[in-house]
């Protein structure tokens, strides 16, 4: 089976009628030892990412990093401007008048966190993806409307074009199709 280049197809895609059956199929597939799984649905389905073996996302840490950078950068900028680079002594008031720096520090914290949240989301999800093999499957356009899919990718060590197809057909799907590159 192992060849030098990439496997002949991207994976095998099965379409399911409803969410219970999709969840069941995902659990059966990961129970059977498949690891390179993904499911495609028009709305978030509770428990589905667990079923395909994806438990945690690093996104909260990415957002925290953005918030910390925003906060330190914002406060640091104001402190540097008012106390180091361009100090103005007005009536003997302190140069580091930190309460006055809080609003901008807060705004930049939120800004940093939000930018990291959105760009982190896109980066972790690998978006933008102008071309993806899944779009070669005709039925896949319904994934953004009403259809539910489970895909076993060919990079899975257990993947075998014929056996995996038979396995997916055994899960009572609506339809099974191969995903061309």
């Amino acid at each position, binding site marked *: 089976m192992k060849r030098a280049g990439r496997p002949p197809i991207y994976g095998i895609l099965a379409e399911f009628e409803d969410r219970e059956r999709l969840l069941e199929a*995902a659990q059966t597939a990961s129970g059977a030892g498949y690891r390179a799984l*993904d*499911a*495609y*649905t*028009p*709305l*978030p*389905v509770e428990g*589905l*990412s667990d*079923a*395909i073996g*994806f438990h945690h*996302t690093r*996104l*909260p840490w990415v*957002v925290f990093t953005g918030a910390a950078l925003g906060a330190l950068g914002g406060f640091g*900028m*104001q402190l540097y*401007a*008012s106390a180091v*680079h*361009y100090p103005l002594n007005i009536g003997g008031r302190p140069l580091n*008048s930190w309460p*006055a*720096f809080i*609003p*901008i520090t*807060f*705004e*930049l914290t*939120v*800004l940093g*966190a*939000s*930018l990291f*949240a*959105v760009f*982190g*989301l*896109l980066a*972790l*999800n690998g*978006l*933008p*993806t*102008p*071309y*993806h093999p*899944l*779009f070669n499957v005709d039925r*896949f*356009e*319904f*994934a*953004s*409307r*009403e259809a539910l899919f489970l895909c076993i990718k060919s990079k899975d060590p257990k993947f075998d074009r014929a056996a995996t197809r038979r396995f997916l057909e055994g899960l009572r799907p609506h339809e099974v199709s191969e995903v061309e590159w």
Partner: protein
Amino acid sequence: MSDVPERTASLSGGPVLEPGHTYRSVTEKISSIALARKTPKEWWIGFGVSFLLLMMLLYATGYLFIKGVGIWGINMPVAWGFAIVNFVWWVGIGHAGTLISAILLLLRQEWRTSINRFAEAMTLFAVACAGLFPLLHLGRPWVFYWLFPYPDTMRLWPQFRSPLVWDVFAVSTYATVSLLFWFVGLLPDLATLRDRARRRPAKIIYGILAMGWRGSATHWHRYETAYLLLAGLATPLVVSVHTVVSFDFAAGIIPGWHTTIFPPYFVAGAIYSGFAMVLTLSIPLRAFYGLEDFITMRHLENMAKVLIATGLIVAYGYAAELFMSWYSANAAEQFLAKNRAFGPYWPAYWALILCNVLTVQLLWFRRIRTRPWFLWVIAIVINVGMWLERYVIVVVSLTRDFLPSIWRSYHGTVWDWATFLGSMGLFLSLLFLFIRFLPVISIAEMRSLVDETEGRE
């Protein structure tokens, strides 16, 4: 109503989505507004009128650039006139959008789902209009970037201790975060439009915007995390923005401005005017596009209740201002309170009390709350009232401050009005384009409501 599930019906009777819908019917109904082959005639009329107003804005600002701010009614001591009134009014209108999408999401209020998308769009366009006014008011608008900390050859920094600079940071952060939040919410729906579009240009444009979204389970997992985090970030942001706007006034020592009630009172006023604007827009929209199934009576009633609550807070703000001017025993403050009610600008003050405090009390009656067109008129009255409130705060305080020798009256000129009405043209033009090209209701979120309405039949 027996087939309506308990959870969706628990709060105030009606459902958040009329029963009988499926993923397919929801998707088709909402996306067909954006994908329609023929643009309705009424849309062209609405857009045409808005576009004419937008042209008036361009004309007024063009003339302003040539002549300077002298064409406006501002003078000394009333250096801020319509510009700050309009700025505060527009920023306030934006707040309901973020409130609906962020705070109500965190509070798991399902009724927000049908209205959050266009309320967020409304926020973006309102903030765009708001941002325009301080820039135009600068006198030399082409050097607006001096407000930002950037490496300049003059080695100058903005004054970070000034509320006006806080405003720059608050409003630009608010605009950016609202845009990001809106876009993240749109992402799955853009994929739906990409897959449903039949014409090639539409497919390509929606395809580029959807960035290859495929609804993968791992993607959804991160998406939900990101959306909740953004909601959590936007929630304190909303409160901070109008608080900072109120600091513009409260940090000044002018009578009528230097008040500690301002931050909460401004935030409540912002939500008040924002919800009034959501009603002003959603009632015609739902009637025209037949969206009564999605924007149900329950939504309208809930928004009416939010109006009563925030209206009462605003009324409390007025009372607190009067009480404090009396209790402070400060002659200038006491004079100001009298001058507002009985001075040269008394019609504006009493009109604002009529619009903001008295009219809203009609909403206590269920029969009025459940009549959309009645609600619509009340919402517009509140919008006018909130504009008058800012007018009274800005103008009456500035025309009569501590020193009678510099007292001078103020009235907006034709250019003030042209710029103000023109900014409505900008707002409405953007809104009409949004309604035409993007889904006005979040399709992906409506699908989850479908599960709840059909699951228990």
